[in-house]
Every structure is written in C-alpha cells, then in structure tokens.
C-alpha cells in the first residue's frame, strides 16, 4: 500500500517537474537568446563593422551612446502617441504626419529667420534663437492643429476606437499629400542645428556629437516634466483618473472634454517638437511620416499602450536592438552595413508579445 502511494507521489512529482520546466522553457529560451547576444557583441562579433566590443571598446561605447540618444528622440515622439492613447483610447495614426508637419513648419521659419533663407544653410549661420524659435512655433502650431483635428473629428466619435483610427488615417493621407503639394515634402529638407549645439564634446577619450546628447537630454527632460505633470498637478491627476475610469471622472463634475483636449494638445505638441528634432537630426521627407508612425507604434507596442514608463522602456529597447543589429551583425558584402537588422526589430516585437500581449507595462483597458 505504502509502495503504491509512494509510486503515485513520485509520478505526480515527476509530472510537476515536467510542467514547471515546460513553463520555464520560454523564459529560458529568452534568457539564452539575451546571453548569446551579449556574448556575441562582447567577444565574438568578428567580420562586423567594428568587431567585438572587447577588441574595439571605443566604438562599442559610441554605439551605446548612439542608441541611448536615439532613444531620447524616440521617447519624445512616442510619449505623445501614448499619452493620447492612454487617456482617450485614440490611436492617432496621423502622429507621423504631425511629426512631418511640425518639422516642415520649423524648417521654413528657420529659412526665413536666418538671413532670409537660401539653400544649404550651415549650422554656423544659425544662432541658437534661430533654432529655438522655429522649434517653439512649430510645436505650438502643431498643438493648435491637433486641437482642431480633435474637436472637428474625434470629439463626437468618442468610444468608437476603430472609426477614430480610420479617421486619423484619412487625415494623415490628406496632410501628407498637401505637404507634398505645398511644402515641397517630396525633397529632403534639413533643419539646421544651431552652431552652439552642432559640435563635438569629449567624453573620456572619445569625441561625441553634442546634438545627440541634446536629444537625450530633451527626452529625459520631457519625460521628467510629463511625469511631474501627470503625478504632481491637478490636471495630471484628472488625466490619470480619466485613464482608469472616464465615466466616474465626468460624473464627479469634472469637465472631461477639456481634459481630452489638453491631452491631445500636449500629444500633438510632442509630435511637432519631435518632428523639429528629427528634422534637424535626419532631415524631412514625405516618407518620414510613415517611418515615424512605425517607430511610435513599435515603441508603444513593446512598452505597452498608454504607459509613460512603457514608452521609455520601449524606446530604449527598440533603439538598442535596431542600432546593435545594424552594427554587430556580420556584414553581407563589401558595403558597410548588414541588411537583416529589420528582422531583429521584428524578433524583439515577437518576443515581447509572446510573453506580454499588452506590452511590457500594458494594462487591459
């Protein structure tokens, strides 16, 4: 009898062990992938652009900085996207075209301000004011534009999230076509950084671009400001309450429509400012709109829709994976870069979604 009990117990234990192992298996796989990637980058990466990190620590450090600073820009743009979604459940598919519009407005302003414009404006010709002013005005124009869009089309379609996504897609189609027609978006337009920023500073033994550090600083500053706004002010509290229970907030006599409008204004403002930074960093062209819609989507899908911390985590992860896969994969031919880095963005997305369908910090609506 005891033999039998022991036998059954042993069997149950074995089954439990198998179950536990199976449950842990996916995590182990991810861990193994991460460890492999780390070992590869640190020691193994022969035949890549820079070689392994141990053999070329300076360039490795540069790639780390590149990723962090690009994450700053990603965060600025995606935080606006996630703010709008978090409160209003609106997926603003026009976010990329807002980015483009904000950048182009700033571009033309800068052309006007800096000695009446002209081709090939050099950063030495641009004073700090001639960058800050267009950036401010561009962002504010976008805030106003966002408010108009929200009031005209989104206010009365509330709660129909699919329809609202379609509306914003239609708006982005129209906006991009209008920009092609009137603002020469078919050709690449470069906003020029001011001369005071466009130089190199030395960090330890390496020379590093100050504008990239500025993008990181801007991302951090905006993150901190948004956090303070959402957690330390009354409007922020209302917004957070609105995220959790919209009906209850408006039943308490708070004007939720006003809150929605504010959230949309801030979200569009951030898209516009992101456009100014992105346009100074990499230029503006009509396809930038789709590219930055994709960037925002990837960041918030990884991080979780509607979460500020998620946007930060998503921006850092996405920037690191895309930069490192571009540099530390074996080069395919005599040219500098690998072709398969997009597949790694895809892989990152797949791994995150397999474990957390709502993203790292996502919560069910």
């Amino acid at each position, binding site marked *: 009898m005891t033999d039998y009990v022991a036998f059954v117990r042993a069997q149950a234990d074995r089954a439990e062990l198998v179950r536990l192992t199976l449950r842990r298996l996916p995590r182990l796989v991810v861990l193994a992938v991460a460890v492999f990637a780390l070992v590869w980058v640190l020691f193994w990466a022969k035949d890549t652009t820079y070689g392994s990190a141990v053999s070329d620590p300076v360039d490795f450090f540069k790639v780390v900085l590149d990723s962090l600073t690009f994450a700053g820009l990603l965060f600025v743009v995606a935080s606006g996207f996630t703010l709008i979604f978090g409160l209003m459940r609106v997926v603003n598919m026009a976010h990329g075209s807002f980015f483009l519009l904000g950048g182009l407005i700033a571009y033309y302003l800068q052309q006007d301000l800096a000695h009446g414009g002209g081709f090939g404006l050099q950063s030495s010709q641009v004073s700090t004011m001639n960058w800050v002013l267009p950036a401010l005005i561009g962002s504010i124009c976008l805030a106003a534009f966002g408010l108009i869009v929200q009031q005209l089309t989104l206010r009365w379609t509330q709660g129909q999230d*699919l329809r609202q*996504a379609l509306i914003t897609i239609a708006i982005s189609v129209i906006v991009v*076509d209008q920009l092609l*027609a009137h603002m020469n978006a078919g050709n690449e337009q470069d906003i020029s950084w001011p001369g005071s920023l466009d130089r190199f500073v030395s960090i330890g033994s390496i020379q590093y671009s100050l504008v990239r550090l500025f993008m990181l600083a801007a991302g951090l500053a905006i993150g901190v400001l948004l956090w303070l706004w959402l957690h330390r002010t009354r409007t922020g509290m209302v917004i957070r309450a609105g995220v959790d229970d919209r009906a209850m907030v408006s039943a308490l006599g708070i004007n939720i429509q006003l809150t929605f409008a504010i959230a949309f204004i801030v979200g569009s403002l951030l898209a516009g400012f992101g456009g100014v930074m992105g346009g100074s960093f990499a230029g503006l062209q009509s396809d930038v709109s789709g590219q930055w819609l994709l960037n925002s989507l990837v960041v918030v899908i990884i991080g979780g829709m509607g979460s500020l911390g998620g946007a930060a985590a998503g921006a850092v992860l996405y920037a690191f994976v895309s930069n490192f896969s571009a540099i530390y994969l074996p080069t*395919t031919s005599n040219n500098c870069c690998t*072709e398969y880095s*997009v*597949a790694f963005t895809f892989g990152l*997305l797949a791994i995150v979604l397999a474990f957390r369908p709502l993203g790292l910090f996502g919560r069910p609506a």
Partner: protein
Amino acid sequence: MRRFLTTSATLDRGIGLVALVLVALGPVAFSAYWVSFILTQTFWLGIAATSMIFLSAYGGMVSLGQVGIYGVAGIVLGNVVTTGQVKGLHLGWNPWLGVVLAIVIATVVGLLLGALASRSTGIYFLMLTLTFGVLIYYFFSSVTSFSGFSGISGIQGHTPSVVGDPTNHPNRLYYIALVAALLVYLGVRYLVRTPFGLTLQGIRDDPVRMASLGYNVELHRTLAFGLSAFVASLAGVLFVWWNDHVDPTSFGLGPIIDLLIVGVIGSLYRLEGAWVGAFAFILINNYTHDVNVPVVGGSFNTVIGVIFLAIVLLSPGGLLGIWEWLNRQARELMTGAGAATLAKARPVKP
C-alpha cells in the same frame, strides 16, 4: 416585413447576377483598356480586400497586414520563376512551382503572424498588423538578395503557359482573375457556414463565452488569419502577373492604406464590398490621377483621402452601407401605411 426583406435580397442578387454576366462577357462588352487595366485590377484588388473583409466581418479583426502578405507572395514568386540578370535569386524554376511556393510561404508567414497577433483584439490588432505590414516592407527594402528597393521585373515572361504573357494575352489573365475572384467569394461564403466559420463568428461576438465553452479562441483566430493570408497570397500572385514587376513600394504604407480604403469604401462588414470598393477605388484613381485639386491643391491622395474621411464620418458601412440604408428607407416608405396601422393596433407598453 419578410416579403420586403426577400425583395431586397432578390434585388441584391439580381444586381450581382447582371454584374457577373457583364464581366463574364468581358472583352465583348468592354474595351481592351477596361479589360486589361480596370477590371483585371479590380478582380485581384478585390481578392486582397476579401482577405481583409473576411477577417473583419466574420472574425472581428481589422487587419492591415494583408498587403504585406501579398507582398511576400509576390516577392517569392518573382524570386523563384525569373531568370537572367534581374535582381533577387532568379532561380528560374517551373512557374507552377513558383505559384505553389508563393502561396505556401505567404500562408505560413500569415499563420506565424496570426499566432503572434491572436491574443490582441480590436485596435491593438489593427496597430500590430500595421506594424507587421510596414516591417515586411522595410525588410524587403533593405535585403538586396531577395529584392532590394528596385524590385524584380520581367515576371510576365515566366508565367505558366495557361496564363501566357499578359501583355499579349490580356484576356487570359482577365478570365483567370475573374474565376479566382469567384472561387474566393464562393469559398469564403461556404467557409463561414461551416462549424469553423460559425465558431469564428461566435468568437467575434463574445470571445469570453466561447472560451468558457471550451473553444480555443487563439487557435481559431490564428487559423482565420492563416486562411486570410492564403487568400491574400492569391491576390499577390495575380498582382505580379498583372504588373510584371514587384518591388517593396508596391506593398509599403501607401498600398496598405489603399487596401484599407478599398475595404472601407466597399464595406468592412460584407464580402461583396471587396469588389465594390476595389472598383470604386480604381475608377477614382484612374480618373483623378493627373488632376490637380482646385483651391487646396494636391493630387489623387487628397481626393481619395477626403472621400475616405467622408465615408468614415458619414457612413461607416461604406457604399454597401449606404445601399442598405436606401433599401431600408424604400421599404419603410412602402410599408409606411401598414406599419402605422400596426403601431396603432398594438397597445403601448407602459
């Protein structure tokens, strides 16, 4: 009431039948331009739209990944069948093998993406599939061994002998596309009446209840996505035969949104909407492409964007939604007297 319902259904069927007879006459009824350009394009674009509308109407999932999947099918076909100096792998295998490989690979890709997306619903699903679609575009734009930015040309020289070279024999491709469109339509109509289709509709309406009844919700969604990928891959094959050329731009963000517009203009909730939308879209595209929009400026995209916006704002059911609304209005007009007497006779509920 029932009598008028059947009348309206009969009317729909009648219109469908007339349209079918017209397109079956094909080259007899239409000019060569219409046959080879507008109608053939309508058929394959309609098949692509069907793959989207099937998911949205019966699975409750609006997918923007279908264009990426037909792009995969097109790229595979181009790589497998072409020979000589073109870009890509130019394997030069049998054209039929190319078709089979294109369909199989695109369907497998669809199943994998479907498995990833199957736990998302509603707006998350839309975003996720859009991301998939755009990533597929960037993948093939950067990987030069499969296509690169300039894409693969000269596919029309490597079609099966039944198809021939569509430039010389446009009617053959026309009828093949027509038959494919019909088969897809009938196939999906049949599919949604099978136990699988009914389960899918149950999941669309109440996933929690279906899950507690023991149905594997995610598996059904994944399979539905795989099926829609199969349909989309057919559109991809027809597209590259028709177009002779495939490059990533033909399945980038622009075409992704175009297909969505096709679905919305037709109707995201009725299969017939696929071809209605495709036909309307191609007509608008064809006749406004070189037009400069007065006052505001801009081109075709402004026109189609405004039409799209108007339809989304005014009639979310698309053109077919407007048609059904007109039918209802007519019915009410005709039964107005009867309904009024009924209302008078029935005691008002407290």
